Each structure stands twice: as structure tokens, then as C-alpha cells.
């Protein structure tokens, strides 16, 4: 799943640690999400959207689906 976390964070001049503090997670987690190595849970994705004042779909966009519908 692609995301615009790094761009949005840079616009606000926040460090990864700043964002992590706001979200209540570790800096490692913010880094992993930004690097597309980890997809956040739904509650965390809502938390990210709330912190940036945006909708989830304005931050995250779906990548290739692992399964296709029958």
C-alpha cells in the first residue's frame, strides 16, 4: 500500500519522532510505514488521517491486491 506520509510530514516540518509521538507509536513504526514495508492497522490509519486532518484515502492508496475476487 502506497502512502504520502513522508510528503505530509515534510510539509509540516515534523521529524519521524515528532509524528511517532503524536501517534503514540515508535519511530521505527513510522519509518516502516513511510518505506512501504508495513501497512498500518485500520485504527492506526485513522489516527494518521486525524493527525494530518485528511481522509484515509487522501493519504493511502491501494497497491496490487494479493487476492482477486472469484
Amino acid at each position, binding site marked *: 500500500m502506497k502512502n504520502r506520509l513522508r510528503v505530509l510530514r515534510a510539509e509540516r516540518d515534523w521529524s519521524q519522532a515528532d509524528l511517532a509521538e503524536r501517534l*503514540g507509536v*515508535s519511530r521505527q513504526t513510522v519509518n516502516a510505514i513511510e518505506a512501504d514495508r508495513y501497512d498500518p492497522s485500520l485504527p492506526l490509519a485513522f489516527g494518521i488521517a486525524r493527525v494530518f486532518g485528511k481522509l484515509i484515502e487522501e493519504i493511502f492508496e491501494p497497491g496490487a491486491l494479493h487476492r482477486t475476487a472469484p
Partner: protein
Amino acid sequence: MAHVELGICGPSGVRPKKESGPDLILMGIGAAVFILAFASTGRALRAPGSSDALSFGAVSVAGLALAAWAILRMWRRQDDAALMEAGMLSFIFFLGLHEKAPKGSPLALFAALLPLAPAALFAWSTIRIARRADELQRRIAQEALAFGFVVSLFAALAGAALEAAGLPRLNWVWMAGVLVLTCGVGMVLANRRYR
């Protein structure tokens, strides 16, 4: 929320707070004094006519009190990482201490049960750290534990097969060490995946 780093075999604050450094050293000094004085107490008790046991006993109690005081300071600071390290270190220090006391004596029983206290401290702080971990850290810990469990299981099966094939009997106490080691390797691998 405090940032929690990942340690061996679970999400664990492997970085104690800076203020806890002196307390960890104090705990080590207290434990060392206790062990040395305890061993001397045991020797004095075995030596007929020796009156030094009381003095050595008092010194060992003082050492233990110093270690306990240092742990209490870390407890009040809620430094789970430091408490985990203190628990692990003092557990290792106190293992085998019962051999220094006369066999079957109350002192030997006390020394045999003593490692349970730091083990409980280690378990309690590890669980608390795990509860405070965020979702990625929990996933990393889960992957590390899965890796450690599977590899240890195969190591145990291989050991049993080798024994059945006629190789010398293994000391299965080392399986705990194998589990910790493989979990540590799993943690390194899982951390690398999400770096």
C-alpha cells in the same frame, strides 16, 4: 507514549533510561557483596568453632539490601528495561548460590529459592514492556518468537534423535539458552525486514 525498542525474544525496552545506569551498577555491587559474603558465611558455618558467620551474614544482608534498594529506585522510575536487565543479571548471579551453603540447611533452601525473585522481576517487566509495544513491534516479536520456537523445536528433535542413535546424553537445561538465542536471531531478522 514512551518509545519502546525491541529486544531479545519479545518487545522489550532494551535501552534503560540514563538515570538508571548508576542504579544498575549499585545493584551489581550489592549483588557481588552479597554473593561473596554469603559464600564466606557458608564457609564459616561449616568450620567448627568459627564465630565469623554472624559478621559475614550481616554483610551479605547489607549487600542484598543495597541491590534491593537500587531495584526499588528503578521500579519507582518505571524503567522496565532497566528492571528487566536487573532481573536477568541477578538471576544469573544467584544461580548456584545454594552450593555455598551447608547442604539441607535453611540457608541453602533460601539460596535455592532466591533466583525466583529476580526471575519474577524479569517476567513482570517483560510482560509490561510487551503490553506497551505498538503494533509493528508486536508483529516483530511474534515473528521472532515463531522463528525461535520452530528452530528450537527442530534442535530438540535433532538432539533426541542423536541421543537415540547412541551419542552421549545432552544436558537439556541448555534448551532454554537455545530458545533465547534463536529468538534473538529471529528478532534481528524480523527487525531487518521492517527497517
